[in-house]
């Protein structure tokens, strides 16, 4: 993690994933499309942010798509998902429509949180997507509770809880890991380690930079995974989720990844070398995966372009949907503070 700066790169990227993709064409192309849907949605979001259509904080997932894509295909409809403020990818792949996500970022009533949440607070009760949590570490206790409810009700639900490396410095992380392991709760902790807690590099924030060691301290199985490789993520999440679902208690995965863009739209990126970012970009999850698929004859350039065109059309339609959306009447400002009007 903290290799000497001989190359000028503090956090060198791992070698690009290689070798045959062990999937049939259908799953392989779906994973590719999942990653592309996140990428194109977010590229458009950044553009719309610049145009003033989207406001507030906008945290892009670009570079980290293999994590959401590899993981989200594993979960069943009855499972619970808890995510962070960098959650567009998880929400989209959970089944929240791109239009509802875009409309939410526009602040429109047709958004998945009726325009009350914005980019950081995407919610969807129908798909058991419990946010969109902008308090770092805030989702972990919630996930433990959702898992406790499943366990007490004898339901076979797994609760998947995404959080970043920054959250591992929060007390909520340690308390929740302890509680989940102590009570053998069906939670899968998915730590997206992108090496920076906003602008603070992991070795400047953590006395122990091997995050799996922290999980092991709570007597929980833990595994480090190449989060730039959608295959590695999918396989690891599948195995860990099965173990959790079978009643083996919680599990922890450290998904090693990298954020290509700034932390948010207000970040001048003074804390990391451009060379480091550029090196990681060469190991980008979408093009390395496409290259592997092409090498083994599962994908042609024409097919890639066709998938991309479909995704771009979905993005275009989502923007159209958001543009056509309506504003919540100001008279409804205080609606839904309480379930029943006070």
């Amino acid at each position, binding site marked *: 993690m903290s290799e000497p700066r001989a190359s000028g790169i503090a956090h060198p990227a791992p070698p690009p994933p290689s070798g045959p993709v062990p999937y049939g064409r259908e799953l392989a192309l779906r994973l590719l499309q999942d990653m592309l849907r996140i990428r194109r949605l977010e590229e458009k979001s950044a553009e719309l942010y610049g145009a003033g259509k989207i406001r507030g904080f906008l945290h892009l997932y670009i570079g980290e798509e293999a994590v959401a894509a590899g993981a989200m295909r594993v979960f069943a409809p009855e499972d619970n998902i808890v995510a962070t403020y960098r959650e567009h990818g998880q929400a989209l792949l959970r089944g929240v429509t791109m239009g509802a996500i875009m409309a939410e970022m526009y602040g429109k009533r047709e958004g998945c949180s009726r325009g009350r949440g914005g980019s950081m607070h995407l919610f969807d009760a129908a798909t058991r997507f419990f946010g969109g949590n902008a308090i770092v570490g805030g989702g972990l206790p919630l996930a433990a509770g959702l898992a406790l409810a499943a366990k007490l009700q004898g339901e076979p639900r797994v609760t998947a809880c995404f959080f970043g490396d920054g959250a591992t410095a929060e007390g909520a992380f340690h*308390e929740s890991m302890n509680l989940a392991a102590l009570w053998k709760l069906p939670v899968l902790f998915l730590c997206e380690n992108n090496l920076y807690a906003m602008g603070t590099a992991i070795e400047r924030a953590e006395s122990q930079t091997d995050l799996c060691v922290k999980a092991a301290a709570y007597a929980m199985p833990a595994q480090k995974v190449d989060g730039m490789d959608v295959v590695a993520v999918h396989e690891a999440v599948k195995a860990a989720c099965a173990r959790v679902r079978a009643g083996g208690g919680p599990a922890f995965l450290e998904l090693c990844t990298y954020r290509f863009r700034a932390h948010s739209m207000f970040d001048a990126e003074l804390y990391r070398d451009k060379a480091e970012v550029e090196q990681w970009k060469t190991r980008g999850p979408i093009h390395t995966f496409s290259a592997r698929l092409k090498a083994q004859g599962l994908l042609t350039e024409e097919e890639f372009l066709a998938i991309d065109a479909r995704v771009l059309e979905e993005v275009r339609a989502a923007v159209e949907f958001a543009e056509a959306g309506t504003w919540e009447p100001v008279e409804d400002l205080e609606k839904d503070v309480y379930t029943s009007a006070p």
Partner: protein
Amino acid sequence: MTRISYREALRLALQDGLRREPRAFLMGEDVGRYGGSYAISKGLLEEFGAERVRDAPLSELTFVGAGIGAALGGLRPIVEVMTVNFSLLALDQIVNTAALFRHMSGGQLSVPLVIRMATGAGRQLAAQHSHSFEGWYAHIPGIRIVAPATIEDARGMLWSALQDPDTVLVFEHAQLYNMEGECPDTVAVDIASAKLRRAGTQLSIITYGGCLPKALEAAEQLAAEGIEAEVLDLRVLRPLDTASILATVRKTRRALVVDEGWRSGSLAAEVMARIVEGAFYELDAPPARVCSAEVPMPYAKHLEDAALPQPATIAAAAKRLL
């Protein structure tokens, strides 16, 4: 009618809640084997088992957050926080999650959670176990704040809280645990309105929680001197029952607010503001208040007594209003 203690009333309420609501479970520090740090849950582990009377590690942030998650997951958790000062460790989950989720999710997710905790001073527990932060919590939209001050409310409020689709915080004043009184055989109380505890004509003493018995005692002293004070028990600190506050003030034309919280930025300040906004021209005197001295709660008995509203200071303030 049966004569029981406030503690027993709370215990019966928990037992009744766990019996009648299969989705309910109790979770907190030492609620099980120990029987509750204030012995409220004594015997419940034996009746309901360790799944439903659940001892939690000393992780307030996470067991309160887990209560929120379990509520979202379809259960009706009752979380006990040992004392209000410790609830500050869970403040993030209460304020940033429980209170916000309904609105922030566009009305999709309610959090039907009950959080109980002991509040208040009077037992020489010093600064880190004696404060009254219910007024702080009453600042937060999205949660309901209740303060049972009678045997009947101690017995009945929990059930009403369990029926509420949103998070309810129940503040039990630690000085009331040993108070005894008559409890009706069937109890059904709302968690929406204030209640008159004594009728009077010359001034209104508006209070709640641990200060209610003190206010009633002050009213007795005043009555002995021929002064008839009305006493209103707020019961619900958020949302405030403004109509009942204004009704009593319009009747007596004088208002004294008694609140164990610190004076600056207190719930008493909010009540006074509402009186001034809603009944200014009907007042015969400026509204007054008796609050705790603005010091961390001291240990020594004489200092603690001096820091808190007392019947004598309440009665004296009442007389200054006349």
